[in-house]
């Protein structure tokens, strides 16, 4: 363990992702700056300038073009990457659906941030949750190390010919993107051996011509969309296996969903990204206060690992779901809580679901707040409406 720790270097999650892109020998990077993502592509440009990565670095004029370029590159058989956040992510929205519809095996990192208006450059998860139905595989990282590792896993998942879907890796803007953690950077050869380039099977090739992006009449369109349903649902075993193999090769794996201090807990708090790592640090102290609460960490979000969810929650009394995005006017106004209530009906779970919205626009949630949320979960009262935690009445 100590030997392992000695290998670590101090990196922000943004820089950890840039290292992963370098170690994966990505061929094409399309770059457009947006806070808090910018230092990902900045660091990659440094690697290219220093000759540590041989790649095409395309300065595009918008995020719409950034994703367009990455899609096109991946369909020529290149390994492509881009990064985004917030307004830029929103500007990409049209291309998000085209990436998954064309089955482009590219990878994108998202330093999650709030959306305008009013303008906020700070963290929440409104940008990513807006895109949850875009047909991408979505994985949340909760440490810089997990972000590095997950980018590596993502190419292996995306390029698998049984999957062929774009993957986005989400992590919290600022709270993770600009804070420094110890990160073990693996040997490039070992990374490439783990995730060798697997080209898109129908890549543009003059010797074997194909048409990409043609119009599809009503007799065919539905079937292509159903292929996407099958592909994303069918990707779950691949995602699980890639993670397990990653563990065997590098000694770190994360599972589809993580239950932390959870076996003996009556109540769970469902959280992702930085809130999950913060809760991991706070849970021992929360337990000391007599609150029998555990953490259910959402890692793989699309496809949703429903069986894991059932496995971890079926014997629990209360589940408090923290959303850092708002689904305006929905039955529960946290998008995740809405889905969980659907999952509970589908699986016949009798949990007491408590929907909490928190951390909007990076309203800081501190130890006392997590303690209060743990108390809410532990009390187990029924709350019919979503609780907007911390808002000034």
């Amino acid at each position, binding site marked *: 363990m100590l030997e392992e720790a000695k290998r670590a270097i101090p990196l922000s999650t943004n820089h950890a992702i840039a290292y992963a892109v370098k170690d994966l020998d990505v061929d094409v990077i399309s770059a457009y700056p947006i806070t808090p993502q910018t230092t990902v592509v900045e660091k990659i440009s440094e690697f290219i300038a220093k000759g540590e990565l041989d790649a095409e670095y395309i300065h595009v004029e918008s995020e719409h073009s950034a994703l367009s370029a990455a899609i096109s590159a991946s369909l020529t058989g290149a390994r492509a990457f881009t990064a985004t956040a917030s307004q830029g992510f929103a500007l990409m929205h049209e291309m998000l659906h085209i990436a998954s*519809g*064309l*089955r*482009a095996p590219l990878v994108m990192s998202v330093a999650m941030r709030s959306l305008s208006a009013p303008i906020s450059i700070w963290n929440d998860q409104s940008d990513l949750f807006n895109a949850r139905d875009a047909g991408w595989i979505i994985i949340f990282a909760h440490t810089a190390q997990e972000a590095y590792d997950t980018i590596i896993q993502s190419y292996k998942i995306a390029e698998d010919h049984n999957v*062929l879907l774009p993957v986005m890796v989400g992590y919290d803007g600022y709270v993770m993107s600009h804070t420094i953690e110890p990160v073990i950077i693996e040997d490039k050869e070992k990374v490439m051996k783990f995730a060798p380039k697997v080209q898109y099977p*129908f890549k543009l090739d003059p010797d074997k*011509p*194909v*048409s*990409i*992006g*043609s119009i*599809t009449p009503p*007799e*065919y*369109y539905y*079937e*292509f969309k*159903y*292929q996407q349903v*099958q*592909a994303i649902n069918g990707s779950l075993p691949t995602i699980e296996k890639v993670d397990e193999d990653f563990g065997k090769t590098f000694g770190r794996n994360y599972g589809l969903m993580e239950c932390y201090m959870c076996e003996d807990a009556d109540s769970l708090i469902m959280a992702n990204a930085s809130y999950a790592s913060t809760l991991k640090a706070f849970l021992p102290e929360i337990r000391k206060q007599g609150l029998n609460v555990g953490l259910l960490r959402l890692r793989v979000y699309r496809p949703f690992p429903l069986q894991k969810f059932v496995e971890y929650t079926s014997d629990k009394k209360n589940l408090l779901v923290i959303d850092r995005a708002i689904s305006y006017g929905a039955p529960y106004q946290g998008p995740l809580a809405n889905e969980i209530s659907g999952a509970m009906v589908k699986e016949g779970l009798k949990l007491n679901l408590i929907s909490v919205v928190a951390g909007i626009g990076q309203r800081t949630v501190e130890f006392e707040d997590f303690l209060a949320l743990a108390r809410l979960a532990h009390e187990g009262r029924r709350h019919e409406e979503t609780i907007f935690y911390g808002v000034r009445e």
Partner: protein
Amino acid sequence: MEKLVSYKEMAPGGIVVNPGNSLEYKTGDWKVLIPVINQETCTRCRICWYVCPDNAIVELDKEYTTKKNRKYKVSYDVNADFCKGCGMCAQECPVKAIEMVPVEVA
């Protein structure tokens, strides 16, 4: 009508893996008017062949002799499978040798 294939038999992403298959897709079935070319007045200038947006004017290796005994080595015809009846050929014909007539009449 031919049987439509299952989603399992289709290449992913709507990608067309058999190039040139637009020939199998007849796009001319909704026209109202169709050009009729008068081989007598046609001077074989080829303008209709150039301007047709659907390559539906066909040049045939078919000799034709006019009543005034002028010999042409080629004739022009319309491929009704792809002509959508836009009338550009008739509009551009410098000798007004093309007439647009209702499909039912032609």
